[in-house]
């Protein structure tokens, strides 16, 4: 069919398998930023910016502002809210967030925690002519 020999078909299947498998690995690897940090902001203003690392694991940050009180715990590359004085405690129930782009929002306390990633050499893309 379509002038393909048996060897061709095996070759095509083989290459598809190889590239899909390596695509899977590459996708996982690309999301590994060189540095990951999170920003705590209250009422739209940055409150704190903390880089993940072994030295901050297990640390707790209490955020006390005029809008309310939250206690944030840092894990190994992840972060969560463990105490809050807001009525529904949705931020506590959400648990850990760990991937860049994920956010925890506590609307009553106007608190936003966002994880971001940065790589060392992303200030300019390579230009080729």
């Amino acid at each position: 069919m379509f002038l393909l020999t048996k060897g061709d078909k095996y070759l095509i299947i083989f290459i598809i398998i190889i590239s899909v498998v390596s695509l899977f690995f590459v996708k996982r690897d690309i999301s590994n930023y060189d540095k990951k940090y999170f920003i705590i902001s209250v009422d739209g203003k940055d409150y704190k910016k903390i880089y993940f690392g072994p030295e901050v694991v297990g640390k707790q940050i209490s955020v006390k502002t005029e809008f309310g009180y939250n206690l944030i715990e840092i894990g190994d590359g992840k972060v969560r809210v463990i105490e809050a004085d807001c009525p529904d405690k949705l931020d506590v129930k959400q648990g850990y967030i760990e991937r860049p782009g994920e956010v925890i929002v506590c609307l009553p306390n106007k608190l936003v925690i966002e994880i971001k990633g940065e790589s060392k050499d992303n200030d300019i893309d390579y230009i080729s002519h």
Partner: protein
Amino acid sequence: MKNLRKLVFLSLLVSLGLALSILESFMPIPFVAPGAKLGLSNMVVLVTLVIFGFKEALAVGVLKSMLFSLATGSISSLFYSLSGSVLSCITMYIVYSYFSNIYSLIGVSIFGAVAHNLAQVSVASLMMKNLKIFSYLPILLLTSLFTGYFVGLSSIFISKNLKKSFPKSCDTSKM
């Protein structure tokens, strides 16, 4: 007389490959990684390989790359396309002469496209000193399957007809 005929035809093939390269540089494939191309000029190299042989195919491939970088005026693309066409030519020759009972021209052309991509990605990562370029490779390999298939398919038809014009310089046992 015969050599002259061959010379003229090879130069025609080179200019055809050059025209196809320039044409496909205007034609980016959407949704795919940068650097993905149709590989239309690979068709010319493959047809030369089938009709004339390895040496002529290598000459056509190298001349085509050099002329292409002269025509577009980009030096760095010379390294990419030169390494790509040399490696793909060698690979296609090996596959075509030793494994043509297993693979048809489509398989040969897919091998060539894969080798082309490998060489280009290696040269790119050498030149940019960045191993992350290799993460493009799976996507390039997937696209090279499709382009390689169609290039091989058209090469089958082209070489079928061209073999009538050059019956002595090729062996009819293959194909």
